């Protein structure tokens, strides 16, 4: 993946000075190839700087940690130690001795459950609070207090209530991600312009039509802000929660690796956790972009 990008950049960096006058003088002769060159150049501008920084960091890390007696392994040893985990993520030796794929998918599943419930409940409650002054007066102070409780503080309580690790983890995900969804949805609903309400009144939309045709699209940009914060928080919370409840999951994988002093495995797991968190965030952002096509501009 990274090699071609670096190559393109090497080619690009040499080009600009020489090609700049050519671009202006022969715009019609090769518009297609010019376009590709421009696209490649833009991609290179985005991809190359982070690659260089990562490479530099790896070098520095290698230099610092390669000495004998260093507490953390250098990147070269991380790679050699976790070779099997990297190249065979699908093994399953029973119990919790599974490949990283299974751990990650177990964690993602919990997040999917907890987050879906949070999205539904959050949008419903947010709509209620945004629409009704009395609901806001009654519920908002409660939300403001509850949302400051750290996710893990809910875990013992939910373990006591559910008497099982799995639903408790899902509950922790839910309770962590629901607040930003509620609050942002409520703000979005409250900010629906009076004009749109007037239009709905003149056309005589019934409450259900008003909800689906006016409220949801008008408040969608706000809702997605909440949903995006929510997915980030739930991914933060799942790792911590799984460390405590045990079983299959990336959180307990990290904790287990620590208990058996496999520091390299921890580093590899952190890498995956970061990448997946990033992908989740992008997914919601991409979804937001598709759904709010019309509204985001205004």
């Amino acid at each position, binding site marked *: 993946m990274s090699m071609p990008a670096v190559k393109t950049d090497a080619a690009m960096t040499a080009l600009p000075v020489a090609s700049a006058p050519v671009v202006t003088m022969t715009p019609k002769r090769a518009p297609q190839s010019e376009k590709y060159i421009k696209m490649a150049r833009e991609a290179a501008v985005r991809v190359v700087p982070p690659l260089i920084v990562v490479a530099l960091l790896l070098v520095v890390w290698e230099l610092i940690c390669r000495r004998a007696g260093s507490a953390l392994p250098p990147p070269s040893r991380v790679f050699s130690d976790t070779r099997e985990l990297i190249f065979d993520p699908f093994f399953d030796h029973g119990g919790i001795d599974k490949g990283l794929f299974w751990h990650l998918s177990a964690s993602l599943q919990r997040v999917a459950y907890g987050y879906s419930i949070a999205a539904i409940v959050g949008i419903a409650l947010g709509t209620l609070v945004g629409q009704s002054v009395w609901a806001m007066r009654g519920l908002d102070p409660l939300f403001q207090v509850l949302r400051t409780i750290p996710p893990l503080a809910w875990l013992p309580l939910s373990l006591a209530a559910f008497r099982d690790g799995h639903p408790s983890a899902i509950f922790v995900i839910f309770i962590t991600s629901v607040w930003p969804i509620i609050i942002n949805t409520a703000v979005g609903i409250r900010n629906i312009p009076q004009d749109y309400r007037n239009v709905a*009144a*003149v056309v*005589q939309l019934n409450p259900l039509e008003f909800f689906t*045709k006016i409220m949801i699209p008008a408040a969608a940009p706000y809702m997605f802000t909440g949903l995006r914060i929510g997915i980030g928080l739930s991914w933060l919370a799942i790792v911590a929660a799984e460390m405590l409840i045990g079983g299959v999951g990336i959180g307990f994988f990290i904790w287990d690796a620590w208990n058996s002093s496999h520091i390299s495995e921890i580093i590899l797991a952190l890498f995956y956790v970061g990448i997946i968190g990033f992908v989740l965030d992008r997914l919601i952002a991409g979804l937001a972009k598709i759904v*709010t096509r*019309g509204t985001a501009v*205004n």
Partner: protein
Amino acid sequence: MQAYLKLDHIDKTFTRGNATTEVLKDINLTIDKGEYVSIIGHSGCGKSTLLNIVAGLTGATRGGVLLENREVNSPGPDRAVVFQNHSLLPWLTVYENVKLGVDKVFARTKTRAERDAWVMHNLNLVQMAHAKDKRPNEISGGMKQRVGIARALAMEPKVLLLDEPFGALDALTRAHLQDSVMALHQKLGNTILMITHDVDEAVLLSDRIVMMTNGPSARIGEVLEVPLARPRKRLELATNPGYLKCRQRVLEFLYERHRFVEAA
């Protein structure tokens, strides 16, 4: 003859905490079917409030609105509004914006194909059929207002309410749209109630001009008949003595007898 639309002794007061402001005082007005009536007044005199009361978006404190002898006090498609800032829903296309009202009003009386044809018919009336798949932010301000007019017309309202429909447009676009509205009125014979603060616009378009005094407690100061034959032509009217006389009357009312006094 019975009045088609009747504004009967309308008072409107706004109360905020202990402060009460009387905005409108004893508004009486009757409008015949097919008539084009403008309400003109300085800003803040409550003319938009009056239109909102007719539309049913705001309630009157006393008095009421009668349409064909039946009281109306909630909004409905029989009194479609063209809003000043177009109020098109930005996530719907031009076609879908018009369809929203059509689907509700003709849910039972027209088939799906008929409704589709009706939407296109109304977009054609305002010459916007070519942009039916565009979103509001992809078309100009004048075009948006055309779509707003199409949306209102498509509901087949008994009364068409125009709330300073051309206020946000540049002068050339405004003239163009005024001509369009005149042509539509000529063709369809709608009953129209328009709010405006533009004297020329009021004289050019209206059969009668209702002049409001300054608020608070704004009243109808004077009602002026505009005895100009239709169809009216903007350029010919510029030198027409009747037109100039009407214009003079409105200007005198607004700038001599009821000058706008800036609140200190």
